[in-house]
């Protein structure tokens, strides 16, 4: 069934364009690989870096396996605590992807709902929602995220900060993230609702809610899809930046950004593998996402074909 769907898709215009773009194929392959390895981290990682029982400080700062003092099973070496870098990266990737995907999903859900409501209902609802969007936009995203993280950490009782760190991050990224979706969806909703098919439904007597949901929503989602893909890259970067600044994931459940922050402290001590591998992984993920997003945008842009 799925195979059939994939085969059908590969035969469609999109699929043809996909097959003709080695960059898109490579990006998707990298992403699938990265996502799978991150999802299966508990099964394939040599070590659980969160389980302190498995971490021996005597195994600290072992270089990658191909170097002189490399040691099995630490393929990419260990950190100053004796944590396996490869395992940390797999778990960190899991964390980064999880936060990125969740942030995109949350902002998309909020943004699409608000955009649809504003575009379809118009009038004061539209006015109010768009003024809110203006205000959110008048504070730079990064600043909002830092403030939210800082404020949330100041308000939450200490015991809740760590378990909620990821939630706080998702919330702080989504708090501004929804605006783009809202604007996109609002714009296309305003176009779509004037289109004849929507008016035909109105003439038939279909209710507004139903027109919004069944007719207009599906037709506004193409740009949302592109935006979501490109924003996934941005969200992962935002998370990394916040963690790098020290207002993101704690050291005990590090994301890629937190790993880079930790690694950065060892930049000059010869323990380069701490910063290089997470940075490469982060760059690779974001690059693949962006390349895929770029391709998707071009492929879905009728004007380019």
């Amino acid at each position: 069934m799925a195979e059939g769907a994939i085969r059908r898709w590969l035969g469609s215009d999109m699929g043809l364009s996909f097959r003709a773009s080695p960059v898109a194929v490579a990006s998707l392959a990298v992403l699938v690989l990265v996502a799978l390895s991150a999802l299966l981290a508990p099964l394939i990682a040599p070590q659980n870096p969160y389980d302190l029982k498995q971490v021996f400080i005597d195994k600290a700062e072992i270089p990658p396996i191909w170097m002189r003092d490399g040691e099995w099973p630490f393929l990419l070496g260990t950190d100053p605590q004796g944590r396996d870098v490869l395992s940390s990266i797999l778990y960190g990737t899991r964390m980064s992807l999880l936060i990125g995907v969740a942030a995109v999903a949350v902002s998309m859900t909020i943004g699409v709902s608000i955009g649809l409501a504003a575009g379809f209902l118009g009038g004061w609802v539209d006015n109010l929602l768009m003024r809110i969007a203006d205000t959110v936009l008048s504070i730079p995203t990064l600043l909002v995220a830092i403030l939210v993280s800082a404020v949330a950490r100041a308000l939450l009782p200490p015991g809740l900060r760590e378990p909620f760190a990821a939630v706080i991050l998702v919330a702080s990224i989504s708090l501004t993230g929804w605006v783009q979706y809202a604007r996109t969806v609002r714009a296309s909703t305003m176009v779509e609702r004037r289109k004849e098919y929507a008016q035909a439904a109105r003439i038939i007597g279909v209710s507004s809610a139903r027109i919004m949901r069944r007719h207009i929503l599906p037709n506004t989602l193409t740009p949302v899809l592109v935006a979501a893909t490109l924003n996934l890259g941005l969200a992962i970067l935002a998370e990394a930046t916040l963690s790098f600044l020290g207002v993101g994931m704690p050291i005990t459940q590090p994301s890629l950004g937190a790993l880079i922050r930790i690694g950065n402290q060892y930049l000059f001590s010869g323990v380069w593998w701490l910063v290089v591998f997470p940075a490469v992984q982060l760059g690779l993920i974001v690059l693949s996402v962006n390349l895929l997003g770029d391709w998707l945008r071009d492929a879905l842009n009728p004007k380019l074909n």
Partner: protein
Amino acid sequence: MSDPIALTVQDAVCLFDVSPPFLDRVLSGARRRVLRAVDGVSFTVRRGRTLGVVGESGCGKSTLARMIVGLQPPTAGTLRLEDMPRADGSLGRPRVQMIFQDPYASLNPRWRVGDIVAEPIRELKLLQDEAAVQARVAQLLETVGLAAADAARFPHAFSGGQRQRISIARALATEADVLVCDEPTSALDVSVQAQILNLMRRLQAELGLTYILISHNLSVVRHMSDDIAIMYLGRFVETGPAEEVFAAPRHPYTRLLLETIPDVQRPNRDRQPLSGEVPSPIDPPPGCPFHPRCPQAETACREARPALEAHGGREVACFLVR
């Protein structure tokens, strides 16, 4: 002439406030500006017949169409659909549907054709049984000249003409009595246009449909209409039976319009093009709105606005017609 009346429109007015925002008005001392899209139009349409409404862009004909189907509430005046007999003998309000100009925008690209055509049946609960719905959809598709199997396909698989057929099938699915057709063929090629016009004529004959055909294409209107109304800046300037209006136009605008239409049958004829352009409906000229372009305009035309008056079987709004 003895057909019962399906639609009565009485002094329909539709105004749009196109004033600059409040602040600009205050600062620049500008007045409120009103676009008089439809400015007092009255007519009746008889059941089973076709009224053609002709005019250039911006004359208000599309607004009129939207008012009839209820997409646009009138600012003033009434639009009344007369009850008509149902199949079971009872009287009921006629159903009005609309055929749109753009066959590409009138079908939801994400829906299968079958669902598009079935939507009104399901929405209006005309049939309860899903199998019956499917059967009805198949029947409708065949009625408009498509195959029943087309129900499973998406609109993008169809050409413009076929899409217009689907639109018609959707309209028929409501068991509509009155169809408002807003430029139904102007986006189609000539050969396809003929197919659609023929289909519409056939359906009218078979189902006793009433058409209100809005178009700028005089030959299409001529071909389709029993009665005709010429619209200029929100008003009717001439109405009457199509044959008579085309044979002997009374209003200067009608005359000039007929004169400017290129005629395939008379290649390379020399003619006098209508000069000037359509004035803005926001700032219509005083008096007769046509007077700036009218070759016969007199002083009176600049001062007062002529009303639509009966002249024989027709009505004309012109001082020069007596």
